[in-house]
Every structure is written in structure tokens, then in C-alpha cells.
């Protein structure tokens, strides 16, 4: 069904191709395609699918969503980049492309795109296996310093949230731990509950229910203030005030279009996503799950992305995890 709809959309547009310059058709005149760079059921997918019906209402056209996964999102991003810059194709992405050049994953990244809307961000939560003796982030860090190379952290690979947050914490005073990469936050949490890992950092959305059920222990939220969805869990800055300079930090989810789409299309899309993201049903869903609704676009979004990239790339560089020096990529040091 999805394919037929796309096909019909394509057919309907074909006769217009030659005429678009002569007689500008009001954007959008047909269905749009939304390419999600992460798999079905993941945070990027769920956030995108939750906001899209509200955006469709504001836009007056359908957005057909499709997951195109692989290469930490590079496959989906490259696919969208290969399609015409007419504003009819959107990229539903997360933070990963900001590190593609630093980690040598792809030469295409968000610099080839324009942010339509940053939808929401998640707050990293530092959690531990419930049988472990630690009750605060400080106790965990002290234990890791006392027992170097003995404590296991579940990670989601280089550049992933767990890796970056542990590197950030280590920037306040070095420690050595075992970092075991899992296929994502879900498998990491599973290993944590089975006792195959001792601690990890997970997005607030994925972990809130596990904390509430007492299956894992939340030590701190990686934020300057506590989260309403995790009452009683202190911010990481309570133990390590110097972390504040790196915050806010965490995964975020947004929608991008190619850099050179027509201004008219961009304006319409930005307006429609602004309305859709403000829908109370969506905002309640996000905040209820411990996410922070962003709803930013334009210069404000660009500034957020630039700062995120600069902070993260340089933390990775200092930890020796970057494959290309951020300086050669003209990524400025965080101020």
C-alpha cells in the first residue's frame, strides 16, 4: 500500500516537473516521504511516528514514513541526499550524523541538510544493577577508581551515549573500567538486569519504567536539574559540579531536509512541524516519558547542533576515541 501511494504520488507529479518553474504549484501538492534513519520501535522511530500525524494535519498532506537503517544512520541520510531537493523528502534523524566525520563513517552529514525541526531530546540517566552497593554517582566513580579494570559498563558503541557520558565523567578525574558494547540501549538494559553489566547510561525515555519498577537503580540524571519523571534522582552536577559546562547533553531527535530546498517549501515545513510538535498530545507523550520537548528550528537549531558537535567531538578527541581530529574538520573547541 505504501508503495502504491508513492507510485501514485510520483505519477501525479511527473507532468508537473517541467511546469514547476513556469507555474509555481503551492507546496505541498502531493504526499511527502519521511525516511527514518533508525529502526522501527527505536526512540527516533517512535518520536517521529508520534509527531507525524499532527504535522500532516497542519501540512494538509500525508507523510509516508519508511525506515532505512544501517551504518549508524548513514544509509538513510545518504539515501535522502540522493533524492531531488524539492522538499518532498524528509530525513528523520538523531544526533549521530554530527559525529560521522570525526568517526570516519561518512563524508555526508548534517552540514548538507537544513534542520526543519528539532523535536525532543532525551536526558541520559546513569543506572546500575540493583544488587550493586552504589547509591550515588560518586560512590560508583570512587569504586571504579579503587578497582581499575574490574567494573563493567554496558555501552552502545563508540560515540554512543554511554561512551560519551562515561568519557565526560572521566574528564573530572580519570578511571579505568570495562566497556562492553551492546546492540543498543534495550540489549544493554537487558544485560544490566541479568547482571552481565554493572552500570550504564540510558536515555530517560527507555529507562524510566525500569527504575520505577525497581529493576535497576538510578544513580543520577545527566542534567543540571532533576527530571519530573524520575523524582528523587539527583542531577550529576550534585556530585560533579564541573560537568555543568557540558550540559545540556544527550540524544535528540529531529527532522531535516536537504540544504538547497526552495525557501517556500522550507517555510511551510518549518511552520507545519512547529504546529505539530506543539500539539498537547505529543508534548504530554514526550514529557511523560522523561524527554524534553525542544521544538526549535532555524538559527536556534543550528546553534544547538553546532554546540553539541563541538562539545562531543572534542571530548572524544581528548579521550583518544576520535579518528579524525576535529581541528582539521574546522569544529571549534567548546568555549
Amino acid at each position, binding site marked *: *500500500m*505504501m*508503495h502504491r501511494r508513492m507510485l501514485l504520488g510520483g505519477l501525479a507529479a511527473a507532468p508537473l516537473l517541467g511546469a514547476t518553474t513556469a507555474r509555481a504549484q503551492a507546496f505541498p501538492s502531493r504526499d511527502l516521504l519521511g525516511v527514518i534513519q533508525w*529502526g*522501527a*520501535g*527505536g526512540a527516533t*522511530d*517512535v518520536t517521529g*511516528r*508520534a509527531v*507525524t*500525524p499532527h504535522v500532516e494535519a497542519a501540512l494538509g498532506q500525508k507523510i509516508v*514514513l*519508511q*525506515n*532505512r*537503517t*544501517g*551504518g*549508524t544512520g*548513514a*544509509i538513510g541520510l*545518504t539515501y535522502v541526499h540522493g533524492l531531488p531537493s524539492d522538499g518532498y523528502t524528509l530525513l528523520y534523524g538523531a544526533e549521530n550524523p554530527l559525529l560521522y566525520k570525526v*568517526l570516519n*563513517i*561518512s563524508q555526508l552529514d548534517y552540514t548538507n541538510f537544513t534542520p526543519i525541526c528539532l523535536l525532543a531530546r532525551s536526558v541520559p540517566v546513569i543506572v546500575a544493577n540493583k544488587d550493586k552497593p552504589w547509591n550515588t554517582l560518586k560512590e560508583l566513580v570512587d569504586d571504579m577508581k579503587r578497582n581499575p*579494570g*574490574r567494573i*563493567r559498563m554496558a555501552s552502545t*558503541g*563508540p*560515540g554512543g551515549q554511554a561512551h560519551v557520558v562515561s568519557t565526560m565523567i572521566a574528564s573530572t578525574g580519570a578511571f579505568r573500567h*570495562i*566497556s*562492553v*558494547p*551492546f*546492540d543498543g540501549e*534495550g*540489549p544493554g*538494559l*537487558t*544485560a544490566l*538486569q*541479568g547482571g*552481565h*553489566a554493572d552500570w550504564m547510561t540510558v536515555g530517560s525515555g527507555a529507562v*524510566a*519504567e*525500569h527504575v*520505577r*519498577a525497581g*529493576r535497576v537503580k538510578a544513580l543520577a540524571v545527566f542534567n543540571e536539574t532533576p527530571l519530573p519523571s524520575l523524582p528523587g534522582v539527583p542531577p550529576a552536577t550534585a556530585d560533579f559540579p564541573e560537568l555543568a559546562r557540558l550540559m545540556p547533553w544527550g540524544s535528540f531527535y529531529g527532522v531535516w531536509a536537504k540544504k538547497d530546498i526552495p525557501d517556500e517549501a522550507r517555510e511551510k515545513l518549518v511552520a507545519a512541524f512547529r504546529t505539530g510538535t506543539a500539539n498537547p498530545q505529543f508534548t504530554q*507523550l514526550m514529557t*511523560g*516519558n522523561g524527554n524534553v520537548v525542544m521544538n526549535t528550528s532555524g538559527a536556534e537549531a543550528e546553534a544547538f547542533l553546532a554546540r553539541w558537535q563541538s562539545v562531543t567531538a572534542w571530548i572524544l578527541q581528548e579521550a583518544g576515541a576520535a579518528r579524525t581530529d576535529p581541528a582539521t574538520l574546522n569544529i571549534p573547541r567548546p568555549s
Partner: protein
Amino acid sequence: MGFFLLSWLDPSLLMLTAAGTLAGIYIGAIPGLSVTMAASILISFTFAWEVNAALALIAGVFTGGVYGGSRSAILLNIPGAPAAIASALDGYPLARRGEAGVAIGLSTVMSVLGGFIGVIALAVAAPVISEFALLFAPRDYLLLAVMGLLLVGTLSGESLAKGLFAGALGIALGMVGLDPMTAEGRFTLGTVQLMAGIPYVAAMIGFFGVSEALVQLHNLRVKPVKQDVSRIIPPWRLIRKYLPLSLRSSLIGVVIGALPGTGGDIAALMAYDQAKRTVKNPSRPFGEGAYEGLIAPESANNAAVGGAYVPMLTLGIPGDAVTAVILGALFIHGLKPGPMLMIETPHLFWFTVGNLALANIFLLVFGLTGIRAFAKLVECPPSVLIPLILVLSVVGTYSIQNSVVDVYFMLGFGIFGYLLKMYGFQVGPVILGMILGPMIDVSWRRAVISVGDDLGFLVEEAVASPLTMVLMAFMAFLLLSQVKWRALGRRLRS
């Protein structure tokens, strides 16, 4: 408990479950269309619906889809879904012998049986099974995958050496793409297309479907076998005879399905291996149309559906890709999937159990109708059937992710698979290697990283874990029981 019957009594939910099951059978039967894809489209589609209606539809599609994959596996040797790979091994030879009707009938009844075992396990033992699944450490996943790889011996055909070569080739193909642990490109030749790896569904369609179509080009003049469609519904004595096998296979299915990270494909392959090792006098040799070789994987893959729901409903952890999508759907509908779901919304649990049971009943009804027409498909002359297989393979592969590159891969593997078959290599071990190779790779590295690269510590931990020891003992038993001790003794004496 009253919620168990909700979807049986509410006419609209009843209709949705039926429609989902029917649609699922065809989605499953068409190679390339997957249940995961269907479920994620349904989520956007059912956004404004009541959550029960959405869940009813998805449960139907899931149940029907896992079963439907066996249709094309039996009739055309193209597994409609990865979970049906093992069903092709004996299902297709059955169709070539004129027993397509019997094969579909048997696979339907045994799928439903497996489905019900899965539902019962979910209903009575969900918390126990999910705690058990959590015990599996990376080293245990490694042992499971290695055990699965022993199947190469079962699938090798005429020569073990050729089987090993094919298996190793599959493992190498499975390694292509970004390393899942370090994001380092492996064998990607610097192209983005290879970063996501070689899609194994495309390889599967090529190796099974297209290569078989090419092999059939040699027999263009041979008259297709007349299909016997007089007895579709398997006689009771046959069902009773195979009941113990089906139960064993279903239990394998439930456990493998419940493990996060393994699904119906591995469950079905392991059940097939189990059947081949435990059944002493099969109806025919395995691989040549043994009923046992069809019953085991068909029971297991449908039992794995119930198994996959276990960690999802009890812990909020997906058991496979489809349940990951269902978790997303629950979230979008404002529910909070997680460990508290069963405590705070027990009605949702019982609704799901009742719904899956209902879907299995519809599966029996839809599965047993229309078999005659399907079986006749195999009676088409090769000049009709071969183009049909090729078209279906191309369309199916393209629809995986609308990628032409996948189609090239599929065609390439089709021709390559044909050459392999011509020289007496089997394609089964290649696919097995592609599925299990990456699992062995990451489980082994994860196990070694977990102990800080200290192998002594790894042994220490393995010895301390009862689960690991049981798996090791089981594997030792598998290997030792296959050795022909008497022949070995005689050779040593002489």
C-alpha cells in the same frame, strides 16, 4: 481474566484479528515483505484507533506472517521470511514429490499447535521464562550460536568439506558492513551501500529461489509431478505420531523466541537440527522430504511468537524486531511498556494472550482453505513457473527497502548459488553462516571484553554459571553422540 475473551466476543476486534491473520499469511508468503515492515506501517495507520484494535490487528499479522513464510518455501523453495528457511529444506522436496498439499496441511496444523504451546507458555510461565532469558550472558549466546553452526554438518549434503566451505563463505559474507561494536568498516570497499552489510533476506531469496529456478532450466522437458490433493488435512494418527516431536520443537521455539536477540529463524533451524538428531527412523531421509523435517521448524517458529511476547510483556524488552515495533506502538498509544505493565495493566496482558489464541484459530481456518489451488501452482509447466519465481524474487527483494542494489545482490547470489549447486555444494550452510556468523563474532568479543581480555577469568565465570555448564554439557553430548564409537574402536584396534 475476562479480558482474555474480549477479542473473541467483540465483533469488530474479532474481524480485525481475522483480517490481520489472513493478511499476515500473504505478507509472510511474499518474499521480501516482512512482518516487521507490516507492523510498522500499521502503527502509523492505526494511530487514531483504540489501542486494543491496533494490537488485535498486529497480533494477527504476526501469527499469520510467521506461518505464511512456509507457503512459498514449500511451493517455490523461496522462504517467504527468514523463519521459513528451515521449512524449505524438506518442504520443497515434498512438493517435488507431489505432496505439496500434504506438506501445507501438515505445516498448518503443526504451526497452530506450536502457536498454542507458545500462547500457553506465555499465559502460565511468562515471568519465569523472562527471568530465565535474562540469565543468558554473552558467552551463553556464543555457545547457542556455535551449537546452531553445528547444523552445517546436517545441511552439508554429499560432502562435509563442501558444507564447511559453504558455511565459512556465509560467515565471511555476514561480516561485511560496519562492525557493530566499533563502527569500523569491514569489506565495504569504501561504499555506503555496503556499510549496512549484505542484506541476508536478499541473499536468501537469491540462494534459494533464483538458484533453484536456474537448476530447473535443466529439466525443461520434464513433466511436472502430478500433485496429490486428495488428502489435505493430515489424518489424526499422523498428528498423534508426531505430537512428541512437535512439543519438543515448540519448547525450543518458546525459549529461543524469548531470548532477546534471537527469533523464529534461529528457533526453526535449531528445531530442525534437533529433529534430525533425535528422530531415528524418519519417514524419508532428511532433506528428501521427511515429514519430521517440516514439522519441527514449523512448530518452533510459531511457538517463538508467543516466546517473543514474553520479555516484551513482562519486562518491556523486545524479544525480536516485531515486538520492538509493538513496544513502540504501546508507547505512542500512551501506555508505558515496561516491567510495571503487567502489574498496572494486567488486562492488556490477558487481552494479548486471548488475542494470540484467537489468531491461531483463524490460522487453522485460513491455512487449511485454498490449499488445492496453491498445490496446483507447482503443476504449472517450468516455462510458466520459472519466470514467475524470477519476477517474484525481484519484486520481493526490491520491496525489502526499495533498493535496486539489493536486487543486484539477489541476482548475483542466485547465479552464484546455481554454480555452487552444480558443483555439489549446498546453499543452506551459506545462509546459516550469514545468520550465525555475526552472532558468534559479537558474542565472542563481548564475552572476552566482559572479562577484561582475561581468559582465565572467563573460564572462572563460565564454571560458576550453571546455565553455561549445562549448555557446554549439552554441546559435548551433541558432538560425542555423533561419533561412531564402534567404527573408531575397530580402526584403532587394527
